[in-house]
């Protein structure tokens, strides 16, 4: 595949310079953060990003006195449960829209999609009051349940479902399979990449969430990684080495996930953002 457009050499140089600079603005801070996380306390303020004698002390302090292990656990558990539930619920809804024709299907679809456009600001006050009434502060339920409906995922999955040929459903029916069996035995295996991409996007959103977990957390034991990091800043900002270790731990899981599934994510962001 050749490039679609060739620019004049002068523009190419400028282009490389600008983009390289931007890339440096991404990579250098990352390097500094990562390097500082492994630095002993006396080296933290030095300019050179990498430690002369790497140490894991910062991570030990993080997981020990800073209880970051608990925050990590909260994040991992709530995000995992939440993403699985979100995907299943969205998939079932997408299946309904794609496979059947029923009264009010179009208006219902619009209603579901419109749910996507309601900004969180508009629902936060009553939801907060609801959480208070249910006494769900500091619970996993508060972090998981209000966010289970993800119309965007339904929209995306429906696109892919509609691309599945009728013949597949037909053959399932002939074999005597009900819609449930057809869904799991035939449809889902064909949805692999789309499902993976949706999972990853939802995971990123869940893991990096700040606003709602901040509202819901009143005591340390219920904090997620992001809230834990924020509280760290309030409590002990000067402790840079350990802070950077915290930043590292808060970012690594998603970065790792990304590099493992790189292609799917890029395709999803790209195909969903514009074509829709």
């Amino acid at each position: 595949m050749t490039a679609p457009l060739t620019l004049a050499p002068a523009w190419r140089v400028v282009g490389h310079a600008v983009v390289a600079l931007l890339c440096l603005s991404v990579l250098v801070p990352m390097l500094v953060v990562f390097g500082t996380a492994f630095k002993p306390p006396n080296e933290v303020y030095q300019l050179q990003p990498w430690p002369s004698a790497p140490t894991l002390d910062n991570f030990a302090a993080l997981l020990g006195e800073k209880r970051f292990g608990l925050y990590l656990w909260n994040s991992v558990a709530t995000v995992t449960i939440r993403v699985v539930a979100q995907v299943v619920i969205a998939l079932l809804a997408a299946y309904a829209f794609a496979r059947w024709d029923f009264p009010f299907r179009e208006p219902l679809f619009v209603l579901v999609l419109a749910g996507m456009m309601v900004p969180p600001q508009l629902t936060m006050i009553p939801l907060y009051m609801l959480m208070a009434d249910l006494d769900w502060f500091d619970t996993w339920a508060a972090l998981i349940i209000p966010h289970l409906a993800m119309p965007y995922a339904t929209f995306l999955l429906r696109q892919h479902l509609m691309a599945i040929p009728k013949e597949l459903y037909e053959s399932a029916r002939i074999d005597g399979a009900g819609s449930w069996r057809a869904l799991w035995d035939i449809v889902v295996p064909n949805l692999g990449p789309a499902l993976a991409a949706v999972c990853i996007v939802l995971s990123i959103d869940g893991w990096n969430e700040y606003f709602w977990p901040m509202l819901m957390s009143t005591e340390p034991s219920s904090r997620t990684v992001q809230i834990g990091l924020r509280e760290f800043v309030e409590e002990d900002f000067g402790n840079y080495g350990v802070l950077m270790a915290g930043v590292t731990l808060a970012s690594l899981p998603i970065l790792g996930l990304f590099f493992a599934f790189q292609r799917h994510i890029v395709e999803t962001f790209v195909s969903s953002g514009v074509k829709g």
Partner: protein
Amino acid sequence: MGASRPEALVLSPSTEEGRRARRFPPWTAPALYLAPMVVLLALFTYWPLIHTVWLSVVKWSLVPGRPSVFVGADNFAAVVASPLFEAAAWNTALYLVASIPLKVILPIPIAVFLWSLGPRGHVYRTVLFLPTLISFVVVSVVVLWLLNPMGGHVPTLLRMVGIAMGNPLTDAHAAIWVVIGLSAWKVMGFHVLIYLAGLASIPRDNIEAMRIDGASDWQVLRDLIWPLLAPTTLFVLISTIIFTLQQTFTPIDILTEGGPQNGTTNLFYLVYQLAMRSFDVGQGAAGTVMLFAGLLVLIWAKFRLLDRRVEYDR
């Protein structure tokens, strides 16, 4: 739009579903599949939405048992009269106006450049995309640290070349630019990706044809690429307007909490403070409704303009 859609099930009585179907209407199955999503949306999206609107026009009673009193526009008036409102409104305008060149325009030449590189541009693309994966919390914490006058890398490096730099985060006028810059940096890669997708759908033949006619780079860009990118640009523009206020919440909360002297607060942050800090539910709801009304206008504008633009190009 239903060309490739499977028809409604015709169930034969020999299948179990067929037997069940004779007792239930045909929409039972889809209704069941749809139920969780619809119920959840009703409970956690639509009901709170209606409740917020109701809260904005009543004086909500904290005493259980005593009904809330309808007060019409009082809450709205109180929000506008709030000393924070003016600062928040001005800042909101600045956030939006400054975000547009940085987040909507700037990614375009970058995307075009990467597109011109073909597969060799993938490395750049991936690196630029990385900020999308890390949280605003992480970015804010790192910025806080890098800019710290005591030991932060930026002041240290600048001091080495003789520039003494105060902490922009404590300057009432400069602080907002830190937030703006931070949020532009974070979404750059994502927007570049969206533009790349838009560029990918530009037919090469048209470019070839223009080249054969002797068109220069600039002409191809201006006459072919820019118009064809218009729907994408509009999409990014409206998304930026809608999401900038929300996205800047985290940096504001972590870096400055709206200060210094209301230098970084915006309408969304103001609403948050009214509702969650002062616990003035009525004002918080009113502020939210006003914000939402503004967003609705923008969303409506998006669809109107987008439809019209797309028609021109087809």
